[in-house]
């Protein structure tokens, strides 16, 4: 699996091939050692636990729902084909996709705006301003939205006065508002990073060659910011797939979503193997999707 393109080799005419090979090996070791601490950490505290989840998904279960390693079964995976499960998965998928699109639509102009401010300090300041709301507590923020959107809330009153909308609380639009609110920074930050580091002289060159403003944007800026778009989309899409707290608080918990469903398996449904199976499948699908994306050319996130 190639997640990265290889950079073109530098001058390949080696003066001394023996030295060259030694240098390469030294490079190789250096790279390995740079990665070693985090590699080891992730293996020990992530990969191995993950393997446990895989193992659990094949195990039987005790009365409390936790895995009993006495019998092995494919029951959990068979259950994945239930219509309920598929319905829930589909609902989460559409919600995540829609949320990603909305975040992109709102996030891109916003990131572009920040990236085109002239002073670095202004840009930093604006970025920080974007992040600050997220240092308050997530639940309290979401409940604040509840206050804003309920029958007496200011947003509802404005909507009723202008005749544009009614009470938004416990409706689908409220859910998407909440999701947009929660995931916007994840879209804005990578987009900003990509836009900021772009070589803008290319845009200028395009304009010099008689491209219109829009044309220059469409053919130069947009493609060059693609890594940012992809990164942002992934960082928004994937967590959105598992989101359930915001939809519960703002949408009324009237639809079961994947995240909620998994939690239920580990709690009141007393079915850890099934919860593990669902998680494994989601993880696999996401991993494949991410790999496919990167094969289509993005160099890095």
């Amino acid at each position, binding site marked *: 699996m190639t997640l990265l393109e290889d950079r073109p080799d530098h001058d390949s005419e080696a003066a001394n091939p023996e030295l060259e090979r030694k240098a390469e090996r030294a*490079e190789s070791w250096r790279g390995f050692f740079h990665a070693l601490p985090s590699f080891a950490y992730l293996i020990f505290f*992530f990969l191995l636990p993950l393997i446990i989840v895989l193992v659990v998904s094949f195990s039987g279960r005790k009365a409390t729902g936790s895995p009993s390693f006495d019998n092995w079964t494919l029951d959990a995976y068979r259950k994945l084909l239930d219509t309920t499960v598929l319905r829930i998965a589909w609902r989460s998928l559409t919600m995540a996709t829609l949320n990603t699109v909305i975040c992109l639509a709102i996030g891109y102009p916003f990131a572009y705006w920040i990236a085109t401010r002239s002073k670095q300090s202004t840009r930093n300041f604006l970025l920080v301003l974007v992040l600050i709301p997220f240092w308050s507590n997530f639940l309290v923020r979401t409940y604040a939205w509840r*206050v804003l959107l309920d029958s007496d809330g200011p947003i509802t009153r404005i909507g009723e006065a202008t005749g544009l909308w009614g009470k938004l609380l416990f409706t689908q639009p409220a859910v998407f508002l909440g999701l947009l609110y929660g995931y916007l920074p994840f879209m804005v930050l990578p987009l900003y990073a990509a836009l900021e580091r772009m070589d803008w002289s290319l845009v200028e060159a395009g304009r010099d060659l008689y491209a219109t403003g829009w044309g220059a944007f469409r053919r130069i800026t947009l493609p060059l910011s693609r890594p940012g778009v992809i990164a942002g989309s992934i960082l928004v899409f994937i967590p959105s797939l598992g989101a359930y707290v915001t939809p519960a608080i703002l949408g009324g918990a009237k639809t079961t979503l994947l995240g909620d469903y998994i939690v239920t398996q580990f709690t009141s449904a007393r079915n850890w193997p099934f919860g593990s199976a669902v998680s494994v499948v989601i993880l696999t699908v996401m991993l494949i999707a991410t790999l496919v994306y990167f094969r289509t050319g993005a160099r890095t996130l």
Partner: protein
Amino acid sequence: MSMTEGTATPRWVDRVLTINGWVVFLFLYLPILVLVGYSFSGSSTVGIWGGFSFQWYRQMFANEALMDSLRNSLVVALISTVVATVLGTAAGIAIDRYRRWIGRRSFDALLYLPVIIPDVTMAIMLLLWFTTINMALGLNTIIISHIAFNISFVAIVVRSRLAHLDPSLEEAAMDLYASRWQTFRRVTLPLIMPGVLGGALLALTLSLDDVVITQLVQGPGATTLPVFVFGLIKRSVTPEINAVSTVMLIASMVLVFVSLGFQRRGERYD
């Protein structure tokens, strides 16, 4: 060259974008205003205004359990952020700057997993793992768990920064007889610092807000603020937690602006 010399965005587009920008900021801060506003409300139900009062702030400081959980949150966030930033930056450099080493591709894949895994799965698997290796649950396990998911986020941000960094700068430095460490310290690090700081900021945010994972790997006396608040909501959302949120907001704002001030002093490369 700075981007703005080349953008030539038409004035009117710029204006529209600016208005859009401010609208978005309004959107971002609206709930914050509500949050802060109600922290000063005299009524104990958020949503019903009960006159101006500092009672919740007083109550908050008197609430030992709440203060304990706040302290825990800060300790966990700080430690996990520092460790994750160091490890994540090293990881980012390892992947981006070194092209051929054993296990590079598997490491690359491994780095993405914590980002794409559902919260609850990670929570359960860590709980199971800590039991397996007989590690007592407590503040340590929370810190370990937070580091586990934060490394990847930091690595991602640092890598995206590195990707656009011209390696010839570092090569030039080394050609001029700088050692690797010197090159790193004086060329690479300052150039990727925005990425490193960005990653650190992200890690801090994620750690401070985490509920699902912390709730399952916590131990006696080691609860964090978000978990405490989460449990509190079971009974009633009194403005006490609004008060806590406001205080944390202000504290983080102060922290960040101070660090921004430091960064501006070191801004020589733009």
